[in-house]
């Protein structure tokens, strides 16, 4: 029982040499997981790379210049290189991932530097911190990764509340991007863009009015150019008016709504006319013009370009051109008259938009709308084109041809008068003129007889009052006596003048 196990010949248990791995292996495992996580995060946070083209890289530095939105860094310029043709500078920038949905077609980039424009000093902070790239993100639109940077910062970024309006003007004047927009002499907006229309006829000016002032703009609002000084001399002396000193230097646009024309706030992008001055807002200027041609087949003597086109006596347009046209196929001469109608002259017409104008006009022609030549001035013989409803007119349709739609016409009232005169003459011709003439001859003979009778009567009368007639000598005597009487009356009058009392007391010499 005291034998040690060593002395016994027993089998030896197998000792397992396999050991569990040390707990220290957790450390590299954790390091690997953390490293992998950091790597994944770094790569997953890598946003898209964009390329922005600028005219110059002034103030930009690769690896340092940031792209900021609302002063939050949303990207970094990684590379700056010249374009192949050396005309521009291309900046490759890495944006943060969360900004990727905002890099669309309308997104704008510009370099923020210190600058003085539009009467304002902006970007002073960049003098010390260096320039950065500003961005105006747009959520909707096609995905774009290449952008053309703006050379000047946009006046209005999309995050600002307010509305854009479009003004049409015959000339830009001193209006430029950044020009202030005033309402009751308070700046409420700016000019965003100013460009010539594709037609070359007018200037399109886009203005932005900040909220809440944008509600002050209604469809009846008038915009006018408030640049410069207006001086007016009136009964009360000289009046000088200007919107602000700043507007004197950099121009300005003001707006107001006449009390009568107020209404609901205008929609975003609504179209307005820019008047030359505040006074001009009271005169109407029409931007919308619709051209029509009307064919007349009678004389248009007196119809000149510039003649008014009227509807029931109210001018709605003017004649632009009068031509003569020969139609070989029918052999007739036609006179096309080109007229220009300004639909805005008619309130609530609803045809300002060319698309709806067509249907509306078709409807009006169906109801009898016709063009007609009418005498505008009887003395000078000037003609006007009159539009009105003619109930009895032959059915006609507007011909939507090129280049101008054709309005149906009815003959002029002048022509109608001529026609009825002709009818009158014809009727006169049918009258029994010969009999009338013979009876008139007879009447004349009778009259001649009556005349001879009269002559005889006159001769008798002259014999009665002739120079040797007794009546005559009687008359002469009577006259002599009358003159004697007159003389004695004269003497008596003298007497009374010298001695008025002689009337009572008799002549002095006699007493």
């Amino acid at each position, binding site marked *: 029982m005291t034998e040690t196990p060593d002395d016994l010949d027993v089998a030896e248990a197998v*000792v397992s040499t396999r050991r569990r*791995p*040390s707990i*220290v*292996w957790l*450390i*590299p495992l*954790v*390091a*690997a997981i953390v*490293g992998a996580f*950091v*790597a994944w995060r*770094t790569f997953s946070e890598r946003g898209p790379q964009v390329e922005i083209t600028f005219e110059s890289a002034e103030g930009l530095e690769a690896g*340092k210049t*940031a792209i900021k939105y609302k002063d939050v*860094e949303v990207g970094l310029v990684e590379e700056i290189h010249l374009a192949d043709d050396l005309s521009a500078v291309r900046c490759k920038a890495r944006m943060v991932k969360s900004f990727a949905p905002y890099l669309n077609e309308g997104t704008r980039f510009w370099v923020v530097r210190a600058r003085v424009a539009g009467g304002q000093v902006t970007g002073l*902070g960049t003098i*010390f*911190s*260096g320039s950065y790239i500003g961005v105006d993100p747009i959520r909707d639109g096609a995905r774009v990764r290449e952008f053309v940077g703006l050379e000047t910062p946009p006046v209005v970024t999309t995050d600002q509340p307010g509305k854009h309006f479009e003004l049409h003007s015959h000339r830009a004047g001193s209006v430029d991007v950044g020009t202030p927009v005033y309402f009751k002499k308070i700046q409420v907006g700016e000019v965003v863009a100013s460009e010539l229309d594709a037609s070359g006829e007018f200037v399109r000016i886009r203005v932005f009015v900040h909220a809440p002032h944008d509600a002050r703009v209604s469809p009846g609002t008038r915009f006018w150019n408030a640049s410069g000084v207006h001086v007016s001399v009136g009964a009360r002396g000289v009046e000088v008016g200007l919107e602000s000193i700043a507007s004197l230097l950099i121009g300005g646009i003001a707006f107001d709504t006449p009390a009568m024309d107020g209404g609901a706030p205008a929609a975003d992008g609504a179209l307005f006319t820019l008047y030359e001055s505040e006074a001009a807002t009271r005169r109407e200027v029409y931007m919308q013009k619709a051209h029509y041609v009307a064919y007349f087949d009678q004389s248009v003597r007196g119809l000149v370009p510039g003649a008014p086109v009227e509807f029931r006596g109210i001018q709605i347009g003017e004649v632009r051109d009068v031509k003569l046209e020969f139609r070989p196929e029918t052999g007739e001469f036609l006179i096309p008259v080109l007229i220009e109608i300004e639909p805005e002259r008619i309130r609530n017409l609803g045809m300002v938009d060319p698309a709806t104008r067509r249907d509306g006009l078709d409807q009006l022609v169906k109801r009898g709308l016709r063009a007609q030549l009418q005498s505008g001035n009887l003395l000078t013989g000037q003609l006007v084109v009159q539009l009105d409803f003619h109930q009895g007119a032959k059915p006609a349709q507007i011909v939507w041809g090129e280049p101008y739609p054709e309005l149906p016409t009815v003959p002029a009232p002048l022509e109608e008068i001529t026609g009825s005169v002709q009818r009158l003459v014809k009727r006169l011709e049918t009258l029994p003129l010969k009999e009338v003439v013979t009876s008139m001859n007879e009447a004349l003979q009778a009259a001649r007889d009556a005349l001879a009778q009269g002559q005889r009567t006159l001769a008798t009368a002259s014999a009665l009052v002739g120079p040797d007639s007794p009546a005559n000598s009687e008359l002469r005597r009577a006259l002599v006596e009358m003159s004697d009487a007159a003389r004695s009356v004269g003497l008596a009058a003298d007497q009374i003048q010298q001695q008025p009392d002689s009337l009572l007391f008799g002549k002095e010499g006699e007493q």
Partner: protein
Amino acid sequence: VTTALAADCARCHDCGLLCRLPSHSAHSGRCPRCGAEVHERKPRSLERTWAWLIAAALCYLPANLLPIMKVTSLGRAQADTIMSGVVYLLLHGMWPLAGVVFVASVFVPLLKLAILFGLLVSVHRGSPWRPVDRTRLYRITEAIGRWSMVDIFVVTILVALVHLGNLATVEAQTGAVFFGAVVVLTMLAAESFDPRLIWDRSEARTP
């Protein structure tokens, strides 16, 4: 030469008492004098060193790729990695400083990783190659380990000192954490490596 290992003896790490280990199969016991754990060789030395070394190597990449410091000056922020800082110093003519930063922050950690890797591989292969030199390399590694923390010190001092509001602010970035981890992990790796293993194999072959 008789080694303690051959005589089934081990020296206590704490009090230095040489004591006999009870049986041949037992690798560890307690020191009869101070009660500290006594083992012939550091237990699982190679395995642990490998683990620390791999962890350090894994951290070395992000430490060098990620920015360690962000300087915001007048609203303009700039994040720098170690290498971009070295390049910045070089470009501004401060090449001695650039040299110090490069040696302390890039070269030395890499050197330590390489030395430890070399030692581990040589021990695994039981290489008899220059055991004295290899031991010296190990000593160097252990000695310079703490000096690699220079970068971290600079960052911590700057972060604490430069708080000038809008004028200038310094912030530490993720890279600094990884860099600190590399230094600590390499020190742990050096610590867990038992240099006696270099000699065990060479002694075993020479007799």
